């Protein structure tokens, strides 16, 4: 169990957070810059500045008390066993890749085999290179291996991709996804990039002005939390698998319980992906239209009706095992006589945000 409670005075606001982190998977700490995300990470990893005296803390990591202001416990950062991948790689400039990645490894009783991770992160060729000889993406890969080899109980990644260009980012994302598939450690990932979040997150903590304003599974939060998708109205996520690539139309066919088409490039067959669709882009009809430009029309079963803060009606329905949301007016709902349990069809365009 990972329990985090911090009350801490920052320059312009009070940081007051309290949350638990699932023992597996990636927990994303999401929020605008300046909302206190990095401060939370620095408190957890023990890197906070000493001048910040006023604080109230309790942090428990796998039954080990790390911080407890009531009992005046504060474990030094080097005894916490929390590894940290920084926004800037922070590789040691006087050490080559091999010396860098073994720095933490030598200082813990690690049961990991360095060679395995070296291979998985494809840095075999870089072992003799010094940081200044590496590209941005390579540096961050080395930095991840270095963190992982210290066999942490918790891995913190603070916007590890934000300093990189688009290509390096795309190249690095699969490595991050693989970390939690292959090493069973909890990961806290900080980001304000929604695409990264959609792709990586299992659980989300949304932060604003020093507070956790919402938290939950990614699929639930997309529907209920406009802060997340930065879009008016709800959005939802469909987990899908690429079943066919239609190159000439720049489309891919996905299986998400039903077969749908989405505009996308650079996808591989059988890729598992997440598709983000805005509820306002989904329309409902009683029978599948015969002559529509809209490519996707799937059968759904209405599960719930909610009125949102703007007076619109949120129709929540099931598409296979997954949830689909449509934002329509009350008037349309009356015309179509929509009610719980009704079988209908949902239409949406092939454009959607893809992880």
């Amino acid at each position, binding site marked *: 169990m990972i329990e985090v409670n911090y009350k801490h005075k920052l320059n312009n606001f009070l940081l007051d957070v309290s949350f638990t982190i699932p023992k597996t998977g990636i927990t994303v700490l999401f929020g605008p810059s300046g909302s206190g995300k990095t401060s939370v990470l620095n408190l957890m990893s023990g890197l906070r500045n000493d001048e910040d005296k006023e604080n109230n803390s309790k942090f428990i990591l796998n039954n080990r008390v790390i911080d407890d202001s009531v009992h005046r416990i504060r474990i030094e950062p080097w005894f916490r066993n929390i590894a940290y991948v920084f926004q800037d790689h*922070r590789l*040691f400039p006087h050490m080559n890749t091999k010396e860098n990645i073994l720095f933490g490894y030598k*200082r813990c009783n690690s049961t990991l085999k360095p060679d395995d991770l070296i291979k998985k992160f494809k840095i075999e060729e870089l072992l003799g290179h010094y940081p200044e000889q590496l590209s941005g993406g390579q540096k961050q890969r080395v930095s991840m291996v270095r963190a992982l080899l210290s066999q942490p109980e918790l891995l913190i990644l603070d916007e590890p991709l934000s300093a990189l260009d688009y290509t390096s980012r795309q190249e690095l994302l699969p490595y991050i996804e693989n970390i939690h598939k292959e090493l069973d450690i909890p990961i806290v990932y900080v980001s304000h990039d929604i695409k990264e979040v959609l792709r990586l997150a299992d659980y989300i903590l949304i932060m604003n002005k020093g507070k956790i304003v919402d938290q939950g599974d990614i699929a639930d939060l997309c529907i209920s939390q406009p802060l997340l998708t930065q879009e008016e109205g709800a959005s939802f996520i469909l987990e899908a698998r690429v079943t066919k690539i239609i190159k000439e139309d720049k489309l891919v066919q996905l299986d998400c319980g039903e077969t749908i088409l989405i505009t996308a490039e650079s996808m591989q067959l059988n890729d598992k992906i997440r598709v983000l669709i805005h509820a306002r882009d989904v329309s409902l009809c009683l029978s599948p239209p015969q002559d529509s430009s809209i490519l996707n029309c799937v059968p759904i079963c209405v599960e719930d009706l909610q009125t949102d803060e703007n007076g619109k009606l949120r129709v929540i329905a099931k598409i296979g095992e997954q949830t689909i949301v449509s934002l329509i007016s009350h008037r349309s709902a009356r015309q179509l006589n929509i009610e719980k349990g009704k079988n209908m069809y949902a239409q949406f365009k092939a454009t959607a945000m893809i992880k």
Partner: protein
Amino acid sequence: MIELSPILVTLKLATITTLILLLIGTPLAWWLSNTSSKSKVFIESIVALPLVLPPTVLGFYLLLALSPDGFIGHLWSYISNTPLSFSFAGLVIGSVIYSMPFVVQPLQASFEMVGKPLQQAAYTLGASSFDTFKNIVLPLSKRGFLVAITLGFAHTVGEFGVVLMIGGNIPEVTQVLSIIIYDHVEVLEYTQAHYYSIGLLVFSFIVLFITYSLNRKLMVRI
């Protein structure tokens, strides 16, 4: 003709002073580069004082402090049963204070250049603060140390005012190069004065040339 003893006394004084300064200066510079304590500015100012103070002022107060009635002098004679004023040991104390900023400032600057981020990275990888200092900060501060050592040494070699006040000009004990040049000039022995002066000039230039070409950023600042 040229005597060897002032050269030897000078080199001995500069070497010992530099070694002591490294021992004191390193932790002091480390503290200064890391602390957020309010006393930081106070300590920094005290360390930098010899940069602006006339050496005679420093020498005057040292003379008082080192005399048998002075605090340091009294303590010294209590422990070692020898007087401190006009002794080599007294000269070392004076030089250490006088050359302090030339060692502390480059070290502090180079520690600050290594910066918190790398130290923090080391901490999260399980390295304690001493471990981090030894394996990250020290190797990355090599240039800083080189600059500190050369400047500390050279500045001690070139010291005059303080030595004049507290040294006593005793041949083979406290008579250093800068003093003997002064002595020769006073009695119009310009040839001898030239020999020592040219030597010092060339030596100082070489030291500064090396230091500057190593890194400008680490130079002494007020």
